[in-house]
């Protein structure tokens, strides 16, 4: 097991270096001049321009910049945002909890609805229920989520006025950020109505972000379940006259869940991609929106650092999934 673990990590190191090189070189290839963007329409002399480029470190040779960058990174320094002049790491962690909270809630919605729907669809294969669930799942899977988000906003925030338009909590509530998760912080604050307000702000973005994972999980659960239900041991269990609930719930589901867990792990990348769109639509102050804004502002260091941090997180989650899978299913180790 240890060997398997070490091998996985060893593979990650060159990948991570590659990721850092790609992030670095993209940024150098970007057209546009960060200094001019900062100056806006204010005229600048060539000397002032050169001084500003120097201050940002863009006047040195590329290999030197890359080595510097790697060296600083190993000390946990991802540089300063060109726009805000704040540390990229600090900016990232100021926003990451918002994205994490949103993603976790989206995933909870996806898992809690997707697995039961998939199981029942498999058990009642061919029924009306099965067709409805699978049809809905396919629609969800085909959904342009940026449009889906706009529709929900029109309906629930515009016409029905059930949910607030954007933000994480009603601004009248103000309490210290302890965990960075608004749901938990609002409970800890003890202020009346705060938790409800946080939930009402979170619910639409979480539904939008959870839509595609929900569809994928429902479909995956159904097919994994179908496969397991046709296995000999399930047939045997059935033949033995065990109650259907026991057969499905204990024997079949436990085995069907193995591939589903892998699927859930793989959805992390999907969630991050979805977060870019969802956060943009709902003005959710998370990492995805931050990246989009930075691309438009040509905030070089932020794009570079953000790409790297996000890739690192995805790699880390995938590693965990791999290891878990290795634990559950020893065959994979070789």
């Amino acid at each position, binding site marked *: 097991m240890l060997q398997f673990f070490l091998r996985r990590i060893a593979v990650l190191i060159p990948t991570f270096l590659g990721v850092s090189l790609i992030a670095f070189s993209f940024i150098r290839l970007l057209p546009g001049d960060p200094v001019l963007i*900062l100056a806006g329409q204010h005229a600048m002399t060539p000397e002032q321009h050169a001084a500003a480029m120097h201050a940002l470190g863009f006047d040195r040779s590329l290999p030197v910049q890359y080595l510097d960058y790697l060296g600083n990174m190993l000390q946990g320094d991802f540089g300063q945002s060109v726009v805000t002049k704040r540390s990229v790491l600090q900016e990232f962690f100021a926003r990451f909890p918002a994205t994490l909270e949103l993603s976790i809630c989206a995933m909870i919605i996806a898992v809690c609805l997707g697995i039961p729907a998939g199981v029942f669809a498999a058990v009642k294969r061919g029924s009306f229920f099965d067709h409805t669930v699978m049809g809905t799942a396919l629609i969800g899977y085909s959904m342009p989520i940026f449009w889906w988000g706009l529709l929900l906003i029109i309906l629930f925030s515009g016409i029905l006025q059930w949910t607030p338009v954007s933000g994480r909590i009603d601004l009248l509530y*103000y309490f210290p950020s302890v965990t960075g998760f608004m749901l938990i912080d609002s409970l800890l604050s003890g202020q009346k109505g705060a938790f409800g307000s946080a939930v009402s702000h979170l619910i639409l973005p979480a539904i939008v972000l959870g839509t595609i994972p929900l569809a994928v999980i429902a479909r995956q659960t159904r097919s994994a379940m179908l496969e397991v239900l046709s296995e000999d041991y399930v047939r045997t269990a059935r033949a033995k006259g065990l109650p259907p609930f026991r057969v499905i719930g204990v024997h079949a589901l436990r085995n069907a869940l193995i591939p589903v867990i892998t699927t859930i792990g793989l959805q992390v990348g999907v969630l991050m991609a979805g977060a870019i769109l969802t956060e943009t639509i709902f003005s959710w102050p998370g990492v995805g929106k931050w990246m989009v804004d930075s691309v438009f502002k040509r905030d070089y260091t932020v794009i570079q650092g953000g790409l790297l941090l996000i890739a690192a997180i995805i790699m880390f989650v995938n590693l965990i999934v791999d290891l878990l899978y290795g634990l559950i299913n020893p065959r994979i180790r070789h």
Partner: protein
Amino acid sequence: MIRKLTFAAALLAATVLSGAASAKTLVYCSEGSPEGFDPGLYTSGTTFDATSRTIYNRLVEFKHGSTEIEPGLAESWTISDDGKEYTFKLRKGVKFQSTDFFTPTRDFNADDVVFSFERQLDDKNPWHAYVAGATYQYSDSMGFPDLIKSVEKVDDLTVKFTLNSPNAPFMADLAMDFSSILSKEYADKLEADKTMQQMNQQPLGTGPFQFVAYQPDAVIRYKANPDYWGGKQKIDDLVFAITPDASVRVQKLKANECQIMPYPNAADVKDLKADPNLQVLEQAGLNVAYLAYNTTQKPFDNVKVRKALNMAVNKEAIIQAVFEGMAEPAINPIPPTMWGYNKDVKDDPYDPEAAKKMLEEAGVKDLSMKIWAMPVSRPYMLNARRAAELIQADYAKVGVKAEIVTYEWGEYLKRLNNKDHDGAVMLGWTGDNGDPDNFLATLLGCDSVGTSNNPAGFCNKEFEDLIQKAKIESDQKKRAELYEQAQVVFKEQAPWLTIDHSTVVMPMSKKVEGFVQDPLGYHRFDGVDLAE
């Protein structure tokens, strides 16, 4: 972390207590995150709204709703006869804000003024580059490092500025955001703690509101400064709810999630005006949008071609489609609200037939050209792309084939620094200080040829003589006459299609009282109240 928690707990206690006395909270749906909280380092209005206009003061201030100067932290001043020495008498007993992160032990004095300017001017000052990559761009672009010879403390409440040459706009420059006064005592403490970065994150000034907390991309919280020298504000808490999407801002305003917002979509204005709970303030903006022909290039070096193209465009249609009528067609390069505006200049009429004929006369056949459309929305041009499409369709009617090109914003401006850029460029300008010189010389003077300020490459002797004369003339009436003549020359030469002067629209709840629109486009909340 633990320290942060205790701060937070103290804040919490404070808000709960003030909450008991039914605190008045004004929520402003701002259009973006501030870049930082030290106004010296940045140039955007969004940042100034969140910093210099709330937290800080300057030696002199713009009067509310005007571009006139009034005393600020300086009570009075004298200017030497040669115009090179400015001596300021400072206001006594002004307190810096007491916050959870810093409690001042002394009042505002001359040291603070000297510090605030020296850090910008002297590149050996430890505060000159206290954040990596920082530059004092606004100060640089106003020429302060070359202009100011020294800033000296005469006594605790007297400061003397010595200039290298006389400069009439200097007083106005001191009212601008980058001239905000910071606390030297706070700076010294941060320097001693080796946490100089905090200056840009936990700001402290003498202004009407003091900083409480900032959550990036989400919210900035302020509370009224109880010790403000101009008297405590009527609202207790000021909250900036950062909402970059204009349609979301409108929805939040309608839902009373905020009480005031800037920059609505033109499409929503009619609807906002119809809402019984809202009021919509309007003010002619100090701006202009234009399409500049590259006059150094064939066939745009021919006045006839430029005139013909001007006549081909239906401006009214642009104003309808882009601004929903919330703008007026521009005739001159300066807005009508500015002194020196020439009312007698007539616009080129919209007449495609005549335009077609003129092009033929000029010997231009099958012209194909580029129209540059800005990638960003600006108050003077909300949707350059859409305007360019309309112009493209109008040109097609007179047989001119136009291709719309656009580049990322920094790239766009950079390419304009090249004199030989191709075709006609859409751009605009918002005034810095209300002087016609800030438009006519900055955008059309010979000195600006080859910069993005003058994409027309316009340098006309007659025009240049007039504006240069006006620059050194001290009698405003005579200046106005000179500028009026310059506008006649401009219209004859037609280096631009003058598109529009947009109207600045501020929708807000009917409960908001005392909000005054700023001609320079900033948003100030001192003096604002909320009715019960």
